[in-house]
């Protein structure tokens, strides 16, 4: 079977040699010699090729491009100078697994191409490619932190409150936590925690990841340490900067964050719709792609709903959307803002549980009462509930949720939900 290949090599000397060699090789046809990324994407989207050889010095070759080629079913082989370790690392960070040296024998190049094209079918096409460490979870499970995506339907069910609370509780329990604000409709983690740094750490990390320049040191620098356990990647402050949070880059950032801490808590956007597909514009940047990506990658999806009739309806519809977008997610449903008067007569927890079992076939894992006084105090002081109101019922409910999510790793300490000394007390 003839393998149709596109070349996208910036250096003309390599390009001429390579094309000449491939033309002579058996079973390989060079269908187009592209000069830039736009040409490459256009040719690939025409569906005439199954493989691409791209050089490391091709301008504007970034993670987004690699992801799109992957989604088009075109395998990418990177070509680097033999002694250029930086370029090799950059290409790997862009998600290119198969690399060849520029001076490699032609047989090796063809062999790599065939391997890459064969490997394309084995990965799930619906998923964006993960960072290098992510696909082999079975090989190195000890090094990867658990990704907890906190999601909720439209409205303000308290996604950020739950995400911050959960991260703070995990940190209070002695676990290292990275809290990432991946809300593409404007993140509020930074103002809620009173972080005055200007930069949006998560967006910056996504930009670096897209350019293939994100490494653990860079990610650590972009994060802000709230205390010895809890680090925060702040989100975009303005909703119109969503373009910076590309799905493939977000996936890379989250994967890398998982190597830095045993728990990564992501505050997601609410919207799961993929409007771009309605207009058949699969090349357009997908605003909600980061949300969907985070939910797909998550080990645990926490779905937050508000404990009133409107909020519960939105939750039921949202859970259905979640099932469509991320079929294998088993959301942990958290009912937030629980107060007796809006749940009808009788025990509000029982009422809500029955309603959700009936309409969404889920059982809430936690009920967070609406402790307005404590939440107001936390938000005016720009502190977590652990810091601002350690005895609040809302905080205790979040601590219980953290214990549930930690499973057997939960220390006995947290069961009593006592404030830890590692938290700076206000003096």
């Amino acid at each position, binding site marked *: 079977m003839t393998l149709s290949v596109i070349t996208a090599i910036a250096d003309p000397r390599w390009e001429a040699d390579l094309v000449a060699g491939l033309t002579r090789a058996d079973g390989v046809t060079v269908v187009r010699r592209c000069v830039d990324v736009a040409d490459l994407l256009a040719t690939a989207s025409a569906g005439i090729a199954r493989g691409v050889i791209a050089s490391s010095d091709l301008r504007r070759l970034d993670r987004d491009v690699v992801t799109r080629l992957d989604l088009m079913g075109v395998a990418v082989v990177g070509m680097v100078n033999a002694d250029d370790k930086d370029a090799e690392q950059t290409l790997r960070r862009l998600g290119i697994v198969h690399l060849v040296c520029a001076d490699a024998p032609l047989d090796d190049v063809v062999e790599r191409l065939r391997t890459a094209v064969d490997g394309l079918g084995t990965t799930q096409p619906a998923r964006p490619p993960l960072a290098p460490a992510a696909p082999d979870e079975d090989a190195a*499970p*000890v*090094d*990867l*932190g658990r990704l907890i995506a906190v999601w909720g339907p439209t409205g303000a069910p308290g996604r950020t409150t739950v995400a911050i609370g959960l991260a703070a509780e995990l940190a209070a329990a002695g676990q*290292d936590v990275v809290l990432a604000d991946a809300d593409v409709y404007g993140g509020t983690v930074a103002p809620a*925690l*009173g*972080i*005055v*740094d200007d930069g949006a750490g998560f967006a910056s990390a996504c930009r670096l990841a897209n350019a293939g320049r994100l490494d*653990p*040191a860079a*990610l*650590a*620098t*972009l*994060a*802000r*340490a*709230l205390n010895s356990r809890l*680090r*925060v990647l702040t989100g975009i402050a303005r909703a119109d900067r969503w373009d910076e949070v590309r799905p493939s880059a977000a996936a890379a950032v989250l994967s890398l964050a998982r*190597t*830095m*801490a*045993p728990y990564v808590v992501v505050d997601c956007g609410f919207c799961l719709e993929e409007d771009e597909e309605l207009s058949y514009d699969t090349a357009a940047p997908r605003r909600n792609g980061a949300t969907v990506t985070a939910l797909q990658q998550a080990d645990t999806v926490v779905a937050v709903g508000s404990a009133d009739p409107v909020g519960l309806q939105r939750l039921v519809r949202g859970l259905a959307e979640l099932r469509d977008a991320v079929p294998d997610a088993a959301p942990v449903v958290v009912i937030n803002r629980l107060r007796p008067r809006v749940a009808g007569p009788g025990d509000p927890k029982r009422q809500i549980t029955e309603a959700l079992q009936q309409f969404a076939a889920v059982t809430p894992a936690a009920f967070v009462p609406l402790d307005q006084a404590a939440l107001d105090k936390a938000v*005016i*002081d*720009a*502190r977590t509930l652990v810091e601002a109101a350690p005895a609040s019922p809302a905080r205790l409910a979040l601590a219980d949720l953290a214990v549930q999510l930690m499973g057997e*790793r939960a220390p006995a300490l947290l069961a009593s939900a006592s404030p830890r000394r590692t938290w700076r007390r*206000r003096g």
Partner: protein
Amino acid sequence: MDTVGSTEDLASPAAQRILPRRWLDVRAVLGIALLLGSMIGGARLFAAASHETAVWAAAHDLAPGERLSAADLRQVQVRLNGAADGYLTGAAPAGYVVVRFVAAHELLPAGALAASARADSSRLVTVPVQVGHLPPDLAPGDRVDVYTTERSTAGPGGARAGAAPTLVLAAAVVQSRPSGGRSFGADAALSVVLVVPADRVADVVRAAESGAVDLVAVPAGGGGGT
């Protein structure tokens, strides 16, 4: 699964967070301290300023020898700044006798009063004085020297030529004088009441009987020796 080994090496910069809202900040403490300080200081100043003593003042002119009754006195609130010893506080000094002249509204000095027994050592003597032989503006409380000139036997009212005037009493206090002279004429006499020590009364009476009396004003602060 434990913490990844590389995490310790990759420290993140500490987040710059807004300072928590604290009700007890330096400005509040300073403000409250300032407020309390000014309140206490003001109260102390006011208390010191209004530290007044009730002392007695003369309701009208008090002449020496006058025995005081409650009607002669008024109580006034004054700030004496430690000089209260020289004045009378407490109950009205009724029954005491004035030994120095005290004008109306003046504070009553303790030294101007004497117990009745001591005050009895002076007498009020009425002395006839010809118009023109006494200070025209003589008022109660003034001090005068009393001179007498032997009267000649030859003519009534005329002084014997060559007779030298004699000082009878120095610095006697005028108790009262009748206002104005209704009688016209060169020999019209006025009766002036003088405070005279008891042992000198005879001298004064004899002088008044034997000759013409002149009253010579002692300027205020002038007549030292009595």
